[in-house]
């Protein structure tokens, strides 16, 4: 370990441009971060694995015993668990599609020069800085409330009646809220990517008679692919564990309509006090996240070679 992290100590094998490189042992510099993260990952994970094989309810801690795969068979046969996985996937995929799709269009829009562009951009990215609990409450109470909410008042004013978002379209409501929070992030990154595009190249293609759609498809999109990969990766990290928006608005309901995996485990752990079941669910969540992570990491690793 130490020899691999430290700088190569054979001067004769070093390429000439590295001759001035210092003899710095990098291990003591990297180790604190690595050890901290290793502990953060391994200790709770080991405990989770341990709990997941036990009957362990905080309401009745004396009845704690080893039950093998009991928790897993219970969780895996619980329809609620599978519903929560489905809802997690719907939530992640739809918000990714909305934020990256709209984000790309808005990035092109804000790449154009127009009066007050700077202020408009600052306003557009503002939702990213709002804490999830606040944005959930704004949408729940002031915009989507079926009686006094602004949306209901407008649709009723137009004679369309009002939608009770959190009763009838709860998942769509959550998707809208999360998309609103993360669209600015996608916009910000993709805008930076577009601005780094060689504008002479676009002009040249336009001179050659390229239509706007072809221009977008063959010049802009390839250039944006790395930025899109980064946006998708960071967003997925956060979307897999969406919690506060659900906690504040629907509490996972009605029924299980907005219970994603994170919320399902939360319900098990802190409301049913079922440590064993929650740990088994948590472990499955970790495994699923790792499958997603492997795919994402690969696409990002490809982008790392600079």
């Amino acid at each position: 370990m130490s020899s691999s992290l430290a700088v190569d100590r054979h001067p004769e094998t070093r390429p000439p441009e590295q001759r001035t490189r210092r003899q710095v042992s990098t291990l003591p510099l990297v180790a604190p971060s690595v050890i901290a993260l290793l502990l953060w990952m391994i200790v709770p994970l080991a405990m989770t694995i341990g709990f997941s094989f036990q009957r362990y309810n905080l309401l009745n801690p004396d009845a704690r015993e080893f039950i093998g795969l009991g928790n897993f068979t219970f969780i895996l046969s619980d329809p609620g668990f599978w519903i929560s996985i489905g809802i997690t996937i719907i939530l992640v995929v739809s918000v990714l599609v909305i934020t990256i799709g709209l984000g790309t269009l808005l990035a092109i829009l804000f790449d154009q020069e127009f009066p007050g562009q700077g202020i408009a951009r600052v306003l557009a990215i503002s939702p990213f800085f709002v804490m999830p609990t606040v944005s959930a409450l704004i949408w729940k109470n002031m915009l989507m409330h079926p009686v006094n909410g602004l949306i209901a008042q407008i649709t009723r004013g137009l004679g369309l009646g009002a939608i009770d978002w959190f009763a009838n379209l709860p998942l769509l409501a959550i998707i809208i809220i999360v998309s609103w929070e993360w669209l600015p992030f996608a916009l910000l990154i993709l805008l930076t990517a577009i601005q780094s595009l060689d504008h002479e190249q676009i002009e040249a293609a336009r001179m050659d008679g390229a239509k706007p759609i072809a221009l977008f498809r063959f010049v802009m999109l390839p250039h944006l692919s790395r930025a899109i990969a980064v946006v998708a990766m960071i967003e997925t990290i956060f979307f897999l564990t969406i919690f506060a928006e659900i906690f504040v608005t629907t509490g996972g309901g009605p029924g299980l309509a907005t219970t994603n995996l994170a919320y399902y485990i939360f319900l098990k752990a802190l409301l049913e006090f079922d440590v064993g079941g929650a740990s088994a669910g948590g472990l499955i969540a970790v495994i699923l996240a790792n499958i997603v992570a492997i795919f994402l990491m690969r696409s990002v690793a490809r982008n790392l070679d600079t």
Partner: protein
Amino acid sequence: MARKNSRQWLWAVLGWLVAILLFFPIFWMFLTSFKTEVAAVATPPQLFFRPTLENYVAIQDRANYFNYALNSIAVSLGSTFLALLLAIPAAYAMAFFPTKRTKGTLMWMLSTKMLPSVGVLVPVYILCREAGLLDSRIGLIIIYTLINLPIVVWMIYSFFKEVPKEILEADRMDGASTQQELRHVLLPLALPGIASTALLSIILAWNEAFWSLNLTTFDAAPLTAFIASFSSPQGLFWAKLSAASTLAIAPILIFGWLSQRQLVRGLTFGAVK
């Protein structure tokens, strides 16, 4: 020329329309915070009204508001400071003395962010309880440091990568010591990057709402928990809720506005040149 002008106006109308739509919920919350509770739920919604500060006064009367705000400040700044302390040496080593394991280490660090918090909620809850860190600022600071560390390392790493190697080399030729090199050359060059990393870390810690909701009750509860406590009495306290929300997000929103240009540079993780 006329054609170019008309096109510019089209972009302006579209751009401003989008900006106003996206910003509207925040604006509406801000507006509502100056209404009376009756005006806040009035039909039709009032755009013009006699503004009042009574909601802010009422929030201030709930003496604990400042306790929550103080917790938010302490936790965001504390965790950011700790994360930088751990991350700067690591990023320095990886950016300037890369080995064949560097890329793997960076990837692994980021993959720890993929670990769903819920997966380890119970053990962390129990560990905190055993260590007496439940509902304590120290506990939250440690956890926020760990969850933000991978992103902080990554951002500082990509900023260090942007520092032209030639400048450091030249300095070395002149016989500067490692310490001098760090203090006089690298630090000034990377300072804007470190600052924007710190800003993002503060924003993420300020807005984090999973651990803060689950691990704090009162003493260490930050503003995210304060706001969440308003979620039950629907509709009754809209104006006061708006005032509290405005106070909760104003500092971080202004932070974000001021730092948005630098923020994005680090967030692209070197994928955008």
